[in-house]
């Protein structure tokens, strides 16, 4: 569980030795998707440890993507599809 007490940085400013909120937000999806090069990924990670403006945003975005991933592939197959595929296989086999 991430500790809220560590998130004392007010946001919108550059944390010491770190990147700005704008720089972090510009790379948000790449960071969440694991597509950021290691040095930038580390910078964003450190920014999130101290920025109380960006961290909630990143968390909500991550939760949203996870939710879409979990719900987006709802099966809605037509009942007779399997039967039609078996018929197609019969046809292929009889060729």
């Amino acid at each position, binding site marked *: 569980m991430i500790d809220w007490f560590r998130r004392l940085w007010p946001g919108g400013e550059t944390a010491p030795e770190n990147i700005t909120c704008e720089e972090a937000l510009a790379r948000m999806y790449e960071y969440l998707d694991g597509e950021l090069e290691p040095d930038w990924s580390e910078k964003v990670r450190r920014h999130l440890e101290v920025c109380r403006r960006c961290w909630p*945003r990143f968390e*909500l*975005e991550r*939760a949203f993507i996870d939710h879409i991933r979990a719900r*987006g592939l709802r099966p809605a197959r037509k009942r007779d*599809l399997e039967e039609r595929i078996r018929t*197609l296989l019969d046809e*292929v*086999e009889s060729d």
Partner: protein
Amino acid sequence: MEDVGRGQRRAEFEAEALPHLDALYAFASRLTGGDEARSEDLVQATCLRAFERWEQYEPGTDCRAWLMTILRSTFINEYHSRRTKPTPVDYDDVAERSVFDGRSPDDPEARFFERIVDDRIVEAIDALPDEFRVPLVLSDLQGLKYREISDVLGVPVGTVKSRLHRARRRLQDDLHDYAVEQGIVAR
């Protein structure tokens, strides 16, 4: 003797591949934006191709993943052949403001999407324009990396990135509008 071999091949295929029809159909539906006829055609074509190449499948490996790869390439072939020119997409209509701005992850209203019925989420994905929906489906529902999506769609990685990001923003805005309409969130 030959019939026995054929019968066994068919039985193996049915036992290994057909249990994944639901997943294949769902994937096809998201790729086609909920087009039932195209989704069924896609699943049928995938099954036929998989059956023809059944010798290439190694028993015990991930049959579902193998079938998904076949479905994806079948879809992409069709996708490219259908698209003589890209559908115009308005790239300026995505508001920069996010529905998550200034919200706490603990705020139930910020997590409005968790209170929306699954069917409506699927509908919102299907309603995205092809240019946005396909990268989103390949990334978020299939777990492909930006580079892989770029190779599959034949567009630069930067284009994949911007379309995927805009797809997510559109989806958020659409689902948020719905949540407001339904009284799930106050504004």
